[in-house]
């Protein structure tokens, strides 16, 4: 049994949160830059120019990329042959997160769902854990902003609706979302599983690099088909028109019940702040 000290997890998580909120991923930066070259709308190009300038400024000035530094969402894979020394996982994630949000001048956005009273330190983190084989601990963090999260949806289609039904649901949802989720977006699609699993898979898919290609050629083709359909909507950067409505679509499949076809769309704005650490 390998022991990882909670203090090491704390330090790694704190650092990961600060970096994620200030430095845009190189894949997203590159996608915005190449979109600027192909964007036909003048206002769309101006938005993309501002977003690149914003990313440069945040990285050099230690500023948050966006004021909505999000709900802190973690996806943790814990090896069965590893355990934490000196603290529980939930506790260490929450305390490292609260410390990073305070130190980094990151906005605390979590509140009571009904009284709307702010919890004051961005607690609690949203934590998904999975036990896996081995002795490693993988922690993925995402700063999930509310504007794009609010545009996300889950539906239960009938098996007969199939791929056409899925495509129609995703495209219609993003057309309705329009300028609200800060396009250009990244769209995570979870297909299959159960009512609760599909959205989790959609969100987890958002950790993939924009420039990766799904290992299953059929899924890769579906991602391209959806991306083309979304960009054909003409919504453009910030809804001002143009070709760059969506930077990437990431699909995750999971087997489901013979009666069911759950589909979830988790919308991510262009400020796609996530990191991972493997201990």
């Amino acid at each position, binding site marked *: 049994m390998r022991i990882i000290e909670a203090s090491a997890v704390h330090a790694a998580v704190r650092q990961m949160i600060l970096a994620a909120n200030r430095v845009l991923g190189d894949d997203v930066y590159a996608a915005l830059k190449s979109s600027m070259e192909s964007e036909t709308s003048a206002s769309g190009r101006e938005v993309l120019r501002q977003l690149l300038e914003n990313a440069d400024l945040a990285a050099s000035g230690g500023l948050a990329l966006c004021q*909505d530094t999000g709900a802190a969402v973690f996806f943790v894979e814990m090896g069965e042959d590893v355990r934490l020394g000196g603290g529980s996982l939930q506790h260490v994630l929450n305390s490292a997160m609260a410390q990073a949000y305070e130190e980094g*001048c990151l906005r605390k956005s979590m509140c009571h769902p009904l009284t709307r009273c702010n919890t004051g330190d961005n607690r609690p983190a949203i934590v998904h854990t999975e036990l896996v084989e081995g002795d490693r601990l993988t922690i993925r963090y995402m700063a999930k902003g509310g504007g794009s999260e609010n545009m996300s949806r889950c539906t239960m289609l009938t098996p007969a609706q199939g791929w056409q039904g899925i495509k129609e649901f995703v495209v219609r949802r993003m057309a309705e979302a329009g300028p609200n989720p800060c396009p250009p977006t990244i769209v995570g699609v979870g297909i299959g599983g159960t009512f609760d699993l599909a959205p989790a898979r959609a969100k987890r898919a958002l950790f993939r690099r924009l420039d990766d290609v799904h290992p299953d050629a059929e899924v890769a083709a579906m991602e391209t088909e959806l991306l083309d359909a979304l960009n054909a909507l003409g919504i453009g950067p910030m809804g001002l028109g143009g070709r760059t409505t969506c930077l990437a679509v990431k699909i995750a499949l999971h087997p489901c019940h013979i009666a069911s076809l759950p589909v979830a769309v988790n919308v991510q704005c262009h400020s796609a702040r996530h990191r991972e650490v493997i201990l």
Partner: protein
Amino acid sequence: MATWHLTTPLRSEDVLQLRAGDVVLLSGDIYTARDAAHKRIMEQLDSGGTPPFPTEGAVVYYVGPAPAPPGRPIGSAGPTTSGRMDSYTPRMLALGVRATIGKGKRSDTVRNAMCEHGAVYLGATGGAGALLSQCVLAAEVVAYEELGPEAVRRLTVRDFPLLVINDACGGELYVTPKLDL
């Protein structure tokens, strides 16, 4: 598309000349208010009180800024989704608020109220909070400090870059998606 340099408080003639698609570089004092602050303002009005800032010619910015790093007046400060404030906006416009700043679509009711009261909806680039914070010269909480990021703040801005999304004549800049299923 024209570019206008405007200073707050806005006058009727400032607002009525604006058309969807115009660029506005805004200077002066603007007030921040988002979900919880709007709810509190409405409660104050319902009980016969007044809003916590002068509303005639005012500009309301839908933002919940990040805390100010040392040596800076404000942290990252980009717009939040305006649609969540739609149920409050007609009442704010009736009080003399001449412009709201945010991102995303407004309801038909709000668009009609803007025509009725001679007001505009201005868009700032969502997710460009670090960049937009550079235009903020000073920030001060003026009400509801306990709401944290949702408190009402007076921001002094210079050349804050905005686009007219909805003008006071019914014009709209947002495109309608080409849905071809």
